[in-house]
């Protein structure tokens, strides 16, 4: 605050239009650092509606087709983290399961899983910090614990998982209480692995983004089964023994089956309204979503093929990883497209899929009962028009909704 001297204002040219003889940058917004003045009116895409065709009279109007919500500002590192974090979580779970039920000869596998978990946790933290607007303040995530915020819960889960995985690698197998602590940490890492694999889905479902919010019941299942498939695939690519291979093959095959089923369930949950499902069906994102399923299905076929050769194993594992990655990116991009489509925001809420789903209100905020399409607001009866020879207002058909896919 106030760290800018008036004489610097001349040089700054950051569009605040402050008289440098009077001005002191101490206003609330003066803390905004401006490298480049904003591009004028940074609206998404080119405006396609003429004001006279703004669709005010349409069954479901919008404000010149402008987005009602802000698109999530996250970049590629976030869906990548969804994948990496999922791998780390599911691998930790499998590691703990081998410790619990595997016996002596599978100790190496548990350790391997925890290596994957540890490296995954580190990479995850890096990806998350890279996306932050102020990476130097990433530790503020540890300032509070806020149960209402899946991101806060998830930050603590990731921290806990990293700590447990690392501790188990350092101490497990030692003598005395340290060794016991290491074994406990291995179990703890397994317990943290469940939320680590699933909370990311809760995080995106817990937003205003229509398609994510609408698929909140199935998205966690998709992300968790996808995490199992991807962790299994990755571990299959790492060196392993025959006994381990059986386990990994079963683990990743079951994961892929669940992933395909959950994908269908997500699609089904989104299909309650065409406008919600749109980004998952059309355009590049729709193709990505289909490709993800195709990769997973192909990987599943290669996984259960009898008498597998080595190339089939490798190809199956690679396809499984690709399918899981594409799934995350498709869901992420669908959310972005959904947020910039005003109809995806408005129509479900008019259909009673807004607050009505949880609070049971029967009327929208404008006091109208939920029924769609709504009667258009009009003066009735229409006043007689004066006959004039001047230009008449042309009532054009509202424009057909354009598929919001950049």
């Amino acid at each position: 605050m106030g760290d800018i001297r008036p004489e610097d204002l001349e040089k700054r040219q950051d569009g605040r239009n402050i008289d440098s003889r009077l001005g002191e940058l101490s206003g609330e917004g003066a803390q905004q650092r401006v490298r480049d003045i904003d591009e004028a009116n940074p609206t998404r895409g080119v405006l396609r509606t003429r004001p006279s065709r703004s669709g005010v009279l349409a069954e479901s109007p919008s404000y010149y087709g402008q987005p009602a919500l802000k698109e999530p500002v996250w970049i590629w590192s976030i869906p990548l983290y969804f994948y990496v974090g999922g791998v780390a979580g599911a691998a930790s779970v499998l590691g703990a399961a081998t410790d619990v039920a595997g016996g002596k000869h599978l100790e190496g596998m548990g350790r391997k899983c925890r290596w994957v978990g540890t490296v995954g946790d580190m990479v995850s933290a890096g990806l998350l910090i890279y996306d932050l607007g102020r990476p130097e303040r990433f530790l503020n995530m540890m300032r509070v614990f806020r149960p209402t915020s899946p991101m806060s819960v998830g930050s603590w889960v990731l921290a806990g998982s990293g700590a447990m995985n690392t501790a188990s690698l350092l101490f497990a197998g030692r003598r005395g209480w340290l060794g016991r602590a290491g074994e406990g940490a291995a179990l703890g890492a397994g317990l943290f692995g469940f939320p680590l694999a699933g909370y990311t889905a809760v995080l995106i479902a817990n937003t205003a983004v229509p398609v994510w919010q609408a698929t909140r019941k199935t998205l966690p299942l998709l992300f968790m089964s996808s995490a199992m498939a991807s962790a299994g695939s990755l571990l299959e690519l790492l060196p392993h023994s025959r006994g381990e291979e059986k386990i990994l093959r079963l683990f990743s095959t079951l994961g892929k089956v669940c992933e395909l089923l959950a994908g269908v369930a997500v699609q089904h949950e989104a299909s309650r309204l065409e406008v919600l499902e749109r980004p998952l069906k059309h355009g590049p994102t729709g193709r990505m979503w289909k490709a993800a399923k195709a990769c997973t299905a192909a990987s599943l076929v290669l996984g259960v093929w009898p008498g597998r050769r080595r190339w089939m194993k490798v190809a199956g594992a690679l396809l499984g990883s690709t399918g899981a990655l594409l799934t995350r990116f498709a869901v992420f991009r669908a959310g972005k497209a959904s947020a910039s489509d005003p109809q995806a925001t408005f129509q479900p809420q008019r259909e009673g899929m807004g607050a009505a789903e949880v609070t049971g209100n029967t009327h929208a905020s404008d006091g109208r009962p939920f029924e769609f399409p709504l009667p258009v607001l009009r003066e009735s009866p229409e006043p007689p028009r004066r006959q004039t020879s001047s230009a008449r207002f042309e009532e054009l058909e509202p424009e057909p909704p354009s598929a919001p896919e950049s």
Partner: protein
Amino acid sequence: MGQKGFFTDTTLCIGCKACEVACKQWNQLPDDGFRLTGMSYDNTGHLGASTWRHVAFVERPVPLPTQTVGLMDFSWLMSSDVCKHCQRAGCLEACPTGAIIRTEFDTVYVQPDVCNGCGYCVAACPFGVIDRREDDGRAWKCTLCYDRLGEDMTPACAKACPTASIQFGDVDELRERAYRRVAQLHEKGWEQAYLYGADAESQPGTGGLNAFFLLVDKPEVYNLPPDPVVPTMKGKEAWASMGWGALGMAVVALGAVLFGREVTHG
């Protein structure tokens, strides 16, 4: 102290944008370009990191009830949009750093020195208000002039509004005033007038807004959601689903290990 808020009566708005200018000037917000959008007279577009008041201009081929029809059926709707300072604020409940707080005036405020720019509030706001400034890396929105309230001053936009379209005060008092105004409009034949988000009854998804509006057409026309909900209300279902997923994961992991182990022994 008490609950402070805005009552924005859009029937009185003349679209002068004094609120936009006053807000920019008081808060010393940077410029965001001077191009024309082509959307009526709205050249601001939407609320954002450096736009905390935004006047929407709606052109309708519909006359207003009290209007004498001239050459054609036509009317303007103007509405000064702002952060709603919800009772159940999506941004506040999503903020993982505690940067977003509820102040002593019952408003929602982002502490810029705490925010680390995770961007979760941007996705969590059901109104699309808060935004992250990219070259600054932090989230920004209207503060309801927190700095002015502390000095017992009126927020800049309400101070600058020439028509009392933006009214500032205690929320309870504003509500009474708003109900009276709606009754008055109904008497005059403006049957469409209603309050948007004035209380928890009419907008249970947000628990009522501290900055509520008087509108005369569907909320969508002003780019407001018809039945907004704070995402947290639905989050429980996602957590429950994750619980089931965890159960399935445990079964699959243990089953795979037990199966694999049997094969090794056999």
